[in-house]
Structures are given as structure tokens and as C-alpha cells.
């Protein structure tokens, strides 16, 4: 929908670039990488960066063009779709080139099905962050399905798919023309270097009738097959013929290499989506660096074609680079290598909702044959991955929601039965403490997370007071039914200021679909952009919770490692970078 006189709130903002705070890891997860390599998975996977564009989309708006967004889903083994990522919203365009990139791991041995859906975003939602958009409120423009292997194996590494409406997508015949979607895949290579550029133009041509031009820049990279892929867009400056834009951050990872040619195009913003090209230059990052050091301006040109002859008309306008600095973006592994320690803590759900441990349908049932129950499995599998990053392998371990022999229900008791210390040695220590605890407590309720989160927060803040370089991860293994949602939120909001992340692993075949409801753990995971709010109006300063449903997983499977470590490096780096804590070298 939308209307033609929209303010195009979203359309004028800057997009892309390795912003200094926004997305610290850029999809690259070196924690997963290190784990897999050390376990002999070297070379079995590679990181692929997807860029999307579309053409001839259907126009759903009456007075203007569609405002499309693309959403990527991955198809699980059970056929269920899981949202993987969203692009930005492009205003008034039927041929959008989205700038937001998505990185995913390409597994040679797996069939990785991707589903792309394109929606038209209503003008009233343009001010929202894209991850907050409710897709059911948007108009569906079409979907396309392919496998990652299909894209990667084409010679140009691009694949153009016909968009289909949802019902037709399974069939090959398309009744209506809904446009096409192009997916371009490129292998990522990691580089920690990021550059900061301040760009300025002089003597721009006037393109607007009654006022001066409203210029903005789009920076694209040229890839082998000759096509250009936009990597970032500056903000729109109004009525400026000699504009200086806010700093642009480009990481070498996005650009490819310092010598890779970049196309820098200057456009005049039009709210109807038809931006006029004022002029462009083609320069690599090293060229731009030279421009800066010599303080020379580069003339913009406009490609013109007279018949079959392509001429570049050189303009008076020039592009200057006022600042060019390179900096190293420290990665998660830099901190770990520099001696920053990760410490894991474990809390296990002993509430009655797990079922009577003496009956074999209980999640806590100890099988005499030695087959591990759901909790034991989770401790082993999750522990194996997490302990890899914990150097001393001494884990504080708690239980909650049970009645110890000698007291009322406790919502945080030492798993090892000790009154004075809570640590156990290694994964085996957790396993032993867990089984002995099962024989010594009676399952009760309700399920309160607050006390264990507070206990973990206390450990974290004490370590800060001792000036220790430690980051903590509390692993809560639960069957997922939570009763003290607000209290938990309060505890989490408080903890968001501490070097602490919380990983909630949901066990049991329990329907985690039910978790969509208000009483569920999943609501604590702020992935959808909704920030946690405490009863005292305080809001979590960062996302510290990650929820992982733990179904029947195979030992050491790559996907498990990935889902467990998916957010940890980002959460860790957000903490470090916001406080300007450098890694030790």
C-alpha cells in the first residue's frame, strides 16, 4: 500500500557497511569455526554471503510503487521453515537491489533448502526496524525456493528464480507473472580490517526543479562475473550541492580486497523511488586512500551511449576523501587468545513438570541400562561444545524448583549437595552431581529462573570486583514451562549490564510451539527485536539470552554447535566493544 506522498522515512537512512556498533561479527562466527576445526571438520564447510535483488515485482501500491523487503528462510529436516534473515526495505521500487547481506555456512554434505519471500511493506511501518515487522501484516509479493548448492554451482554464482505465489510454489507452472528474484552467492573470507571513510562531493549538478539536489551515495563492489553488488548506502542530505556524508565503514571482508574495484554512485533522492544518477566513479579502496593522502578530487562521470558507442561524460563535480583510516576489528578469538576467560555455569530444572523421575516417561528418568535421559544428553552434548572455551573446566552448578531433603522448595541449590561451594569438576562432575541430586531432592515447583540468574549475576559482578578478565555464560537446561516471567525479566534486565550471557536449552519432546505463548522461555530471547523490560521500566541494554530447543540431536553435529554458539560471540563482542575493552596482546 503506502502512498505517494510518503515521507520515505526509511528510504533516507544509511544502510550497510561495517558499522562500528551495529553488527560486530557480520555473520562470521569464529567461535563455531574454531570448534569445528579443532574437531577435524576443517574444510567441510565454508561461509557463503548471499546478496539479493529482484526485478519486475508486482505493484501493490495504488499511487506509488511497492516497498519491497526480502525474507530468507531455511528449511529444516522436518520441513519446517525457520527465518534466517531479512533485508532492508527499499522504498518505491519494483527492481530493488537489497544491500543487507546474509552469511550462512555451506555444508557440502547437506541439502540446504532456502526459501525467499518478498513482501511489500506498508508505509506506516517504515519507521520500524525490519526485524520488528510483522510479516502477516505486509502484502505478499511472491516466493522462490532453491538449494544453496544450486546457487553456488552456477558459473556466475548467481541464480535467477521466478517468484510464485504461495500456492503455486510447489508446482512448476506459473499462472501469473510475479517477477524474478536473483540470488548471488560469494564465498566469504575473513579479514579483521575495517576502513572508515568520510566522503565529500563538490559542484554537484542540480537535478531538482525547485530546490537543490538531495544527494546520497551507493557504494558497490564489482564481482568476477561483472555484476555489481551494492554494499552500502549513505544517508540522504537535503538540498546540498557540496555534501559531506557521515563516516562510512567498510570492512575488507565486505569489499573483498583493497584492490577490488568499487563503484561509487551519487544519486539525487526522489521519494517516488526514481533516483537520478548525478555521477559516479570507479575506485578501489587503495585508490581512495591515495585520493585522501594527495587531497585530490576525482571527477565524477556519467555513462552515455550514443548508438553503439559508450562514452563517459566527465563532469565538473568531484569526489573527495576527507578521511581514510584503517582499524582492526577484534574478533571473539582475539579476546580468547589474549587470555580473556569464558566461564560456564549450569542450572538444571528440577520442577515437577518434568515428570516423576521414577517413571520412564520422565525427562529425569535414570535408565538402569545407562541410556542417558534428556537432561543427561543435553549436559553431554551442550557441555562438550561449551567446555571447549572454558579453560579451568570448573563449573558452578545449580538446580532449581526442587525440595531438598531438609528444607522447603529451593530455586537455587548447589547441585553437588554442598552447603559451601557450588563448583564441580568438568562435564563428568556435572553428570555425577546431577544424578546424586536427583536421588536427594523431590521435584516440586514452580519454575523460577530469577534466583539462578541472580546467583549467576552475583558471580559475574564479584569477578568484576576482583578485576578478573572473565565473561560468564549461564546454561539453563529446562523443560521450558516458566512461571515467573516478570521476575525472570527483571533479573535479566539487571544482568544485561554484566559480562554475562544466558543460554537456555529446552529439552524434551515438548511442543516448543507452545512457547510462542506468553509464559514461555522463548519470549526472553530478544531476537525479534522486542527488548526485555523490567517491572521498574528498565530495559535490557543488550540481548543476553539465547534460546535453543534441544531435540534429538546427533553427537557433534555441526548444526548443534552452530545453534549453541550462534549468538555468543556477538553478545560477547557487544559487551567488550561498548566498553572499549581491548583484547590482551
Amino acid at each position, binding site marked *: 500500500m503506502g502512498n505517494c506522498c510518503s*515521507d520515505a*522515512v526509511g528510504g533516507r537512512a544509511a544502510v550497510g557497511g561495517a558499522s562500528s556498533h551495529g553488527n560486530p561479527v557480520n555473520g562470521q562466527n569464529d567461535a563455531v569455526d574454531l570448534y569445528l576445526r579443532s574437531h577435524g571438520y576443517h574444510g567441510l564447510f565454508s561461509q557463503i554471503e548471499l546478496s539479493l535483488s529482484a526485478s519486475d515485482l508486482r505493484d501493490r501500491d495504488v499511487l506509488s510503487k511497492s516497498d519491497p523487503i526480502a525474507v530468507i528462510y531455511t528449511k529444516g529436516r522436518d520441513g519446517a521453515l525457520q527465518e534466517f534473515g531479512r533485508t532492508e526495505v527499499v522504498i518505491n521500487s519494483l527492481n530493488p537491489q537489497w544491500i543487507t547481506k546474509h552469511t550462512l555456512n555451506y555444508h557440502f554434505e547437506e541439502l540446504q533448502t532456502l526459501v525467499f519471500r518478498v513482501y511489500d511493506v506498508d508505509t506506516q511501518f517504515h*519507521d520500524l526496524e525490519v526485524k520488528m515487522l510483522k510479516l502477516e501484516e505486509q502484502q505478499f509479493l511472491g516466493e522462490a525456493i532453491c538449494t544453496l548448492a544450486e546457487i553456488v554451482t552456477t558459473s556466475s554464482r548467481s541464480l535467477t528464480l521466478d517468484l510464485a505465489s504461495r500456492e503455486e510454489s510447489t508446482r512448476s507452472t506459473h499462472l501469473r507473472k510475479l517477477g524474478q528474484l536473483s540470488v548471488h552467492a560469494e564465498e566469504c573470507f575473513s579479514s579483521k580490517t575495517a576502513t572508515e571513510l568520510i566522503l565529500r562531493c563538490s559542484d554537484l549538478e542540480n537535478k531538482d526543479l525547485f530546490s537543490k539536489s538531495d544527494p546520497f551515495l551507493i557504494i558497490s563492489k564489482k564481482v568476477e562475473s561483472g555484476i555489481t553488488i551494492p554494499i552500502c548506502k549513505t*544517508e540522504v542530505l537535503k538540498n546540498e550541492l557540496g555534501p559531506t556524508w557521515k563516516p562510512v565503514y567498510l570492512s575488507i571482508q565486505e569489499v573483498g580486497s583493497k584492490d577490488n574495484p568499487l563503484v561509487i554512485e551519487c544519486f539525487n533522492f526522489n521519494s517516488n523511488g526514481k533516483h537520478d544518477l548525478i555521477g559516479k566513479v570507479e575506485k578501489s579502496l587503495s585508490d581512495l586512500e591515495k585520493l585522501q593522502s594527495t587531497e585530490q578530487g576525482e571527477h565524477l562521470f556519467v555513462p552515455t551511449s550514443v548508438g553503439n558507442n559508450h562514452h563517459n561524460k566527465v563532469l565538473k563535480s568531484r569526489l573527495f576523501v576527507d578521511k581514510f583510516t584503517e582499524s582492526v576489528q577484534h574478533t571473539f578469538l582475539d579476546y580468547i587468545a589474549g587470555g580473556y576467560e569464558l566461564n560456564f555455569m549450569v542450572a538444571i530444572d528440577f520442577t515437577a513438570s518434568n515428570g516423576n523421575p521414577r517413571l520412564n516417561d520422565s525427562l529425569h528418568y535414570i535408565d538402569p541400562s545407562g541410556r542417558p535421559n534428556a537432561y543427561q544428553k543435553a549436559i553431554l552434548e551442550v557441555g562438550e561444545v561449551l567446555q571447549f572455551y572454558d579453560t579451568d573446566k570448573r563449573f558452578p552448578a*545449580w538446580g532449581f524448583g526442587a*525440595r*531438598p531433603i*531438609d*528444607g*522447603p*522448595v*529451593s*530455586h*537455587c*541449590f*548447589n547441585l553437588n549437595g554442598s*552447603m*559451601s*561451594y*557450588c563448583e564441580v569438576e568438568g562435564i563428568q562432575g556435572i553428570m555425577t552431581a546431577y544424578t546424586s541430586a536427583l536421588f536427594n531432592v523431590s521435584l*516440586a*515447583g*514452580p519454575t*523460577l529462573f530469577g*534466583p539462578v540468574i*541472580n*546467583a549467576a*549475576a*552475583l*558471580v559475574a*559482578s*564479584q569477578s*568484576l*570486583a576482583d*578485576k578478573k578478565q572473565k565473561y560468564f555464560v549461564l546454561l539453563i537446561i529446562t523443560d521450558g514451562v516458566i512461571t515467573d516471567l516478570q521476575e525472570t525479566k527483571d*533479573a535479566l534486565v*539487571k544482568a*544485561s*549490564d*554484566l559480562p554475562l550471557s544466558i543460554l537456555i536449552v529446552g529439552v524434551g519432546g515438548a511442543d516448543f510451539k507452545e512457547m510462542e505463548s506468553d509464559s514461555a522461555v522463548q519470549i526472553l530471547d530478544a531476537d525479534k527485536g522486542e*527488548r526485555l*523490560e523490567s517491572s*521498574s*521500566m*528498565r*530495559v*535490557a*541494554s*543488550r540481548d543476553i539470552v539465547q534460546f535453543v530447543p534441544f531435540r534429538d540431536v546427533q553427537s557433534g553435529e555441526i548444526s548443534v554447535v552452530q545453534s549453541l554458539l550462534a549468538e555468543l560471540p556477538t553478545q560477547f563482542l557487544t559487551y567488550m566493544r*561498548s*566498553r572499549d575493552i581491548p583484547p590482551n596482546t
Partner: protein
Amino acid sequence: MERASSSWSRTVEIKVISGEGLRVNRTTPVKKNTFVIVRTESREGQATRVDTEGGSRPVWNEKFVVDMPMHARFVTAEVQCKTSAGNKAIGTAKIPVTDFVGGYVPKNYLHFLSYRLRDDKGERNGIINLSVKVRVAESDGGKYPMAGNAGHAGNYTRPWRAAPVQQKVAGGIVTGVPVWYNNQPSKKVRGKKRDKSGRFDSVRFADTTSPDGKPGAAAVSQPENNVIEVASVEEDARETSEDAAEEVVPVKEEAARGGAGLVVARLALAEESVARAGRKVSRQLDLEFLRIDS
């Protein structure tokens, strides 16, 4: 604490970072020209520059150094919007001093804090992000990490190693802190608190899970006394447990008569005091408790 400057006020660096989802009249997103006024106790505050580009997601990144009186309990951040018709209030956040003072973290820890804004009608309106750091003189940097702990009771005051098992999370399903506080015998305890001996003072503090501790309550009791007090109270509790056990009987009768909520609450209370001393009684009680509950 001898130096006059630090005993009456503390110097705090407040950085107003950004706002999110700011709206005018609860509906339309703010277009531009928002700024923030930061106030401590005093009426006049310090204002950031006006943000012209961020719209409803303004970025200010502006740091203020303020001297806060020790008794100040809140810092307020007020977001306003400059319009042709004067300044319009967008929303206000009250930042409790306890969010950045006290606890175990080092005194000069850089806190990143975010708050929901409320407009003058009390409606939710956007979020403000700030960072706050208390300036600490070189000499006592982190020396008294617990000083100024007042009012931050609850979650961080209990030594965490003692937290498990003994931790008082009142039994079972129904109990909660308010029940305990409104209850007769508990009032008795609170009354004793004002005794010269101050015996119950420290006990309540160690036991309670509610963040109710009044400022200064913790600071009063000396650690050495604590041990003795706790011991004496345990004795006390043993006596009361007998009382409590007797008390249970009439309570159960009441339950039979059907005084549901209150009775359960009182049971919980009884259970609590019993649990502290007599284990057997406690377990019996649990059984009773469950039966009543079901």
C-alpha cells in the same frame, strides 16, 4: 568518607546515547529536533544538543558530569522535542541511583542502562539509552566495593555461596513476600527490629529475598556481631518453631473451615519458621500443605 566532597555528593558521568521509537501524541513518530534534559535533584538540568537527523531514533552521544547529592535517589532524563510552538515533552525516565551504585561491581564500573520513557499521561513512549559511571578518586578506587550498598538489597547482598539450600524462598506454590510482611507475627519481628540490640535486623536482612532493605539497614550491623546474632536467633527460632508447630493445628482447622488464601499464607509462614529449626515438623507440614493445596 572523611573528605567533605565525597561524603555529601558523588560525581557521576552520564552519557546520553540515543533514543528509540519516540512518538508524538502516542501515534506519529517524531520527525526531528529531539533533545534530552538530565536532572538530578536540582530543578535545573543540563540539556543535550538538538538531534536533527535521527527522527524517532535520535543519537546524541553527549556526556555530562554531574555532582549528585548523596541523598538523591533518582536521576531523571526528559526527552523533549523542539517545535515551532515551543518545546513538547515526549517522555521521561526515572533512573534509580541503585541501578549504578552498589552491588559487587567495582564502584567506577561503566553501566549501560536503558529505560522505557513515559509521557505526561503515563503512557509508554520509546526507550532511552544511557551510560553511567561514578567517578572514583584514585585513592579509594574499588577499595570499598560494598560502600553505598544501601538500598540495593535483595539480589546482590546475600553472599552467593550461602545462597543455596539455606536460601529463603518461601515454600511451595502460594507464598510470596507480601504475605509474609502483612502477617501478624512478622510484624512482631519487625517491631523487635527497633530494639537496641538490633538482633533481628541482621537476620531479616540476610534472609529476605525482597529488595525491600531500606537504605542503611545493611550498613548498621557489624560483621563480627553478625555471627553472634545469627546464633542467638537460631536459638530463638528453635523456640518459636515449637510455638509454630502448635500454631499449625489451629491453622489447619481454619483451613478446614475454608479460609483458603489467608490460611495458606499463614501456613507458609509457619512452615518457614519451622523449617529453620525443626526438620521433621517441616516435612510433616509439607504433606499437610500439599493436601490443603489440592
